[in-house]
């Protein structure tokens, strides 16, 4: 009988589930990731002689609803042409009826993996600003991501940042500047998500999203998720983890659903004292339980983080006179020191020479 090594055993287990791409121009190389709806493979495009990422509906016979959702995701991504959103090259149906789409194969690391390597704050905030860009672009086109989290952000080797997995995106409206049909959504503009349906990831979902209040989900729900990502960047854990930093206990994450919405959040600064207060304030404003208290748009959030990076006053943190002086001194430390040194020298000169 054929001897099967451990390597062959693992390979056979994997290929047994590979989709039949015989009718397409792709051939599977390896499985990249498996999600709730689809499985992503590295595939070779024979015609163009390049590798692509191929997302295939996970289960044959999943039904028309799953196929429509996958097709809808591909169309949403295809309409959102932005350097921070992975371009879709192709869409099709396999012989067994499964929908697939091919997209650019992105190299790099997931944001949550990247963080483990330790990065300076300014670099992390730079990445955060680049995450905001495609999200703001999508909002301008009437699309809410609804599942923003570090696992869905890829950071390339050259610093490029890509927002992935638009599988549960919600189409709010057609963009005013675009002709009708620019962002297509089969069925309703809700993307066929009924009230009470909870889509997203606990810890990164806005309270209204966790409660399944589909009609209340808008740009500010993504602002919340971005706040949660910022929190993660500052604390290396999702929001809702409490007392862990002080006690060294295992991190507890937020419960899902309505319980998640009711759980008070801990400030990131309470866990990490090195986080500057203005940055804590920005994070907490984005994470406000009431959406009216959050930044109205991603651009507003982005602008506040940019102001912090430029040592300017941030909207989320009203400074007292003393803090304003301190920030002024921090910002202009070198010229202030030079001026003071000049004054001191002049004073000493006057004292000792009498002139």
């Amino acid at each position, binding site marked *: *009988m054929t001897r*099967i090594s451990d390597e062959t055993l693992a390979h056979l*287990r994997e290929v*047994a589930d590979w989709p*039949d791409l015989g009718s397409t121009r792709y051939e599977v190389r390896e499985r990249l990731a498996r999600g709730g709806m689809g499985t992503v493979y590295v595939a070779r495009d024979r015609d163009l002689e390049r590798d692509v990422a191929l997302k295939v509906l996970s289960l044959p016979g999943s039904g028309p609803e799953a196929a429509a959702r996958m097709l809808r995701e591909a169309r949403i991504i295809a309409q959102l042409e932005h350097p921070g959103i992975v371009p879709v090259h192709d869409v099709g149906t396999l012989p067994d009826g499964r929908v697939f789409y091919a997209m650019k194969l992105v190299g790099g690391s997931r944001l949550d993996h990247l963080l483990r390597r330790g990065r300076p704050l300014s670099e992390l905030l730079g990445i955060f600003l680049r995450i905001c860009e495609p999200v703001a672009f999508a909002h301008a086109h009437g699309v809410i991501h609804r599942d923003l989290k570090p696992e869905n952000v890829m950071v390339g080797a050259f610093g490029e940042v890509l927002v992935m997995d638009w599988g549960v995106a919600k189409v709010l409206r057609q963009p005013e500047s675009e002709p009708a049909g620019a962002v297509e959504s089969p069925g309703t503009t809700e993307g066929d998500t009924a009230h009470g349906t909870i889509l997203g990831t606990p810890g990164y979902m806005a309270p209204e999203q966790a409660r399944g209040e589909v009609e209340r989900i808008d740009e500010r729900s993504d602002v919340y998720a971005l706040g949660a990502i910022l929190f993660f960047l500052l604390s290396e854990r999702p929001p809702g983890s409490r007392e862990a930093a002080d006690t060294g206990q295992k991190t507890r994450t937020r419960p899902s659903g309505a319980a998640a919405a009711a759980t008070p959040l801990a400030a990131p600064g309470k866990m990490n004292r090195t986080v500057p207060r203005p940055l804590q304030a920005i994070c907490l404003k984005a994470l406000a339980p009431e959406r009216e208290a959050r930044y109205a748009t991603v651009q507003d959030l982005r602008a506040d983080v940019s102001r912090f990076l430029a040592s300017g006053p941030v909207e989320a943190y009203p400074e007292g006179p003393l803090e304003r002086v301190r920030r002024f001194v921090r910002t202009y430390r070198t010229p202030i020191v030079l001026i003071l040194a000049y004054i001191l020298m002049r004073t000493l000169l006057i004292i000792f020479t009498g002139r």
Partner: protein
Amino acid sequence: MDGDTDIGGPGRRFPATRLSMVVAAGGRDGEVRARAFEALVAAYWKPVYKYVRIKWGASNEDAKDLTQGFFALAYEKAFFARYDPARARFRTYLRICLDGFVANQRKAEQRLKRGGHAETLSLDFEDAEEELRHCDVTDSLDMEQYFHREWVRHLFGLAVAALRERCKANGKNAQYRLFERYDLEGPDAAERVSYAQLALEFGLPATQVTNYLAWARREFRGIVLDTLRDLSGSDEEFRAEARLVLGVEPP
């Protein structure tokens, strides 16, 4: 099957209506029961033998006797008729029975008395020994995981043999040879062969390589799923085994 055992195998799949072998092995019809039992032996003898060798530290000869003796006693005492799918997987039940059997044998400190049925078993223990020589056994080995892994290895080996026979019978030798080159030999090769290289080697268009491999994999998956269905006591167990072994949700 290529002769490592004369029991079971694709040519003797039974019954044709896909009644579970586990259920059939506990039935009242003597002939049905005997043939279902043989199919179960074919599917499990090798992991049982390796498990006895590794977990119980049995010598080659002792492990052979214990394996033969276990299945003989299981047939005589109708162990498998007592299996309750609601309580555990069949594989787990079999392993627990095996542990009890070996413990009792050790306690009695006597050579096994082979039952009449055991004499009909012809198992290729040398093949199992050869596989054991390639096995990396460490002290920290989890024996439940080991039994599962060796069972999957044996299951896949049987499925590959069945696929080879099926391809031979249907004039699809090229499909099997491609499957063999890419999926069986490929993972152990120093350098991975590409579809384009295979296309050149077999004188086929690259699209045909994709089609042939997809067909062979589909057949392989089908054979594994059919065998799992045979070896499961319930539909629920079958689905759980399919997810565990292949990572797929069966149709």
